[in-house]
């Protein structure tokens, strides 16, 4: 490797590339320096390095003061000590000072046992509140998706970094100074009065219980134990490759069969699959892509291209708030979860003779914005929502433990029919590029009338922020682009506004890595390898499916035959498509 620097950490030699910080250099020889504010999801654009918590201090020979390992770069011949008495005592004092105005309520805190501050308190052997200072009294808020209790904030600024640098939403940031300083939305408003998209990435990176999801587990318990109600489940593609982590499985373990069994044991009357909704999305969105392409190739200059995916509710919020002039570009197709809800409460409910008000549709999502999406008015009929509410992957794991279900020993089972059948194309919705690949598998075959020679589109896979590919459709070069994180989406939308975005189809997902990196997933605690393992699992799930194209799903074909008619037909338009609103605050 180029420019290797050799130094000594805890009497052990280590060679690392120039520009490496001491935290990473130590980690390369299995020395785990504690850090709290620092977070670096390598290979993505998520990086928070304010060097503000000072918990990672180390002793560097020749320097008078302790140095923060996260912000100190390696130098040739440097001699570093990470565990001297001075360092260990200083670290403990720093943690004790952080605790001095922290609410001492770990027992009932929703983040208990997943809290990074709590872990460090245990690790540093802090057994009493050494400094009991004034307590901060800051705003509390509960939205449909996110709860905020800034008394628990330790000012690590991770949320501010993801909200501004990564997502470019610009809602959360530091206000005031000194003891009064806090992280707050614009003008100290409530989230609902800002441009917040509810992507929840602030929750995904928060080390403490300051930012959390809105908990729906008790609401679900009430419904499950109500004999009057029929409660049905639909878990998203990304849930089955991450849920296992909560039960001690290696990241990337596929637990689809156990997931279905566990939901049944929990008391759901029927256990279906959002993947069915994903196949339906491809049918509708694919038809829309073909419709716009044919119009464009037929010389219609008014057709809006690129067509953009619309599965991700945070992305929908983002363009409604920031690009109200471009609302005609995104596909009108609802998200898979909402399509599922619309079909469950019409076609399936009628078939089963269940009145709408007795049917409760619950989605299990890797996402927090989905909680908000359920409450959008246009997704309800006479005040009764198509999807009643949503639980995150984490909430499901907690509930299973609460219900005495020993997940690891569960037998595998299949989802119920008919809305539990799905293709490999639906499975990959959970990773960035997945919806694009799924759409291409169908669009190619319908457009050309030929079978795909190679089903995988590898150019649209992977963690790169913006990916592009060109697909030969019988001599027509279809140009596609895939972006994840809203910051990358903004780059594309600014180009579109300037008339410089030359693609036909664009996929956007708000979270890093797509839904596998969603804010409702088990916490990654800054380890990007977890996201990569989940992504690999998503593609393994696809490979293991007998049907790998959405239009090949026999139950989808049946649904169109007996109920919907054609994609983009009258009934499909009514049930499976939506419209967007100008939510600009300017």
């Amino acid at each position, binding site marked *: 490797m180029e420019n290797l620097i050799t130094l000594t950490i805890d009497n052990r030699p280590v060679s690392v590339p120039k520009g490496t910080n001491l935290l990473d250099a130590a980690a390369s020889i299995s020395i785990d320096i504690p850090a709290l504010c620092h977070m670096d999801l390598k290979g993505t654009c998520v990086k928070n390095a304010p060097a503000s918590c000072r918990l990672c201090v180390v002793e560097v020979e020749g320097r008078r003061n302790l140095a923060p390992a996260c912000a100190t770069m390696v130098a040739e011949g440097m001699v570093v000590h990470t565990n001297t008495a001075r360092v260990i005592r200083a670290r403990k004092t720093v943690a004790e000072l952080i605790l001095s105005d922290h609410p001492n309520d770990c027992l009932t805190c929703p983040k208990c046992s997943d809290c990074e501050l709590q872990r460090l308190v245990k690790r540093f052997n802090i057994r009493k509140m050494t400094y009991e200072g004034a307590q901060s009294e800051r705003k509390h808020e509960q939205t449909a998706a996110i709860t905020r209790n800034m008394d628990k904030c330790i000012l690590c600024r991770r949320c501010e970094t993801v909200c501004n640098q990564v997502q470019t939403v610009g809602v959360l940031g*530091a206000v005031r100074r000194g003891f009064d300083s806090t992280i707050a939305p614009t003008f100290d408003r409530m989230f609902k009065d800002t441009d917040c998209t509810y992507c929840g990435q602030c929750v995904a990176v928060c080390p403490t219980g300051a930012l959390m999801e809105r908990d729906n587990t008790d609401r679900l318990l009430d419904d499950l134990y109500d004999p009057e109600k029929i409660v049905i489940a639909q878990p998203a593609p990304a849930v089955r490759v991450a849920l296992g982590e909560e039960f001690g499985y290696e990241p990337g373990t596929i637990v689809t069969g156990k997931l279905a069994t566990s939901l049944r044991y929990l008391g759901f009357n029927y256990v279906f699959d959002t993947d069915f909704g994903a196949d339906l999305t491809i049918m509708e969105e694919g038809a829309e892509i073909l419709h716009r392409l044919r119009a464009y190739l037929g010389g219609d200059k008014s057709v809006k291209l690129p067509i953009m995916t619309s599965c991700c509710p945070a992305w929908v919020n983002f363009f409604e708030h920031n690009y109200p002039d471009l609302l005609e570009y995104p596909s009108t197709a609802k998200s898979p979860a909402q399509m599922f809800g619309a079909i469950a409460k019409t076609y399936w409910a009628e078939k089963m003779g269940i009145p709408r008000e007795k049917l409760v549709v619950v989605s299990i999502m890797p996402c927090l914005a989905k909680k908000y999406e359920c409450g959008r008015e246009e997704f309800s009929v006479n005040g009764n929502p198509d999807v009643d509410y949503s639980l995150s992957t984490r909430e499901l794991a907690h509930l299973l433990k609460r219900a005495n279900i020993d997940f690891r020993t569960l037998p595998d089972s299949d989802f119920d029919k008919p809305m539990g059948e799905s293709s490999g194309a639906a499975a990959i919705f959970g990773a960035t590029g997945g919806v694009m690949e799924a759409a291409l598998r169908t669009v190619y075959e319908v457009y050309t009338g030929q079978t795909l020679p190679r089903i995988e589109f590898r150019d649209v896979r992977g963690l790169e922020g913006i990916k592009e590919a060109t697909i030969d459709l019988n001599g027509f070069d279809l140009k596609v682009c895939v972006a994840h994180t809203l910051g990358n989406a903004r780059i594309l939308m600014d180009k579109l506004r300037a008339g410089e975005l030359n693609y036909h189809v664009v996929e956007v997902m708000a979270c890093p890595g797509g839904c596998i990196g969603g804010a409702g997933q088990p916490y990654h605690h800054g380890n990007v390898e977890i996201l990569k393992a989940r992504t690999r699992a998503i593609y393994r799930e696809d490979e293991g499916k007998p049907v790998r194209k959405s239009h090949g799903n026999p139950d989808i074909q049946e649904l169109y035959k007996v109920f919907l008619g054609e994609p983009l037909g009258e009934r499909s338009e009514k049930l499976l498509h939506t419209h967007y609103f100008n939510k600009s605050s300017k």
Partner: protein
Amino acid sequence: MKVSCEALRQVEAICEKFNNDPGELITILHETQNTLGYLPEEVQAVIARCLGIPAQKVYGVVTFYSFFSMVPKGKYPVSVCLGTACYVRGSDKVLEEFKRVLGIEVGEATPDGKFSLDCLRCVGACGLAPVATIGERVYGRLNPSDIKKIIDEY
């Protein structure tokens, strides 16, 4: 209180004068406050739009510096120094007396808009401690018993 359209045009002109450069945010806030007397939300939102930055950023800066104010100041803004030198020489009692005489709390203005009351940390006249300023004028070696007389001058 609603900011007039004319005032918002003035704010846009100030941003324009500094080429709508986000690096000039503090200078722009200074000049805007000098012009309008304060920096309400609508004004901050206009500045954010002109500079192409989130309103949250502007709000963060406005709330960080005690010089910036989101409420209108009185015609005669009173500031009592609570810096170390003034404090040990009894400026807390001076502040209490201003509150009593004006009948307002820190950060407020009198109903007639004549006076507003704030605290600050050091005006660089520690030799005259305790110190208060009214507008541009500095009053030193203050005693709580002086306050009524000073206010009556205005």
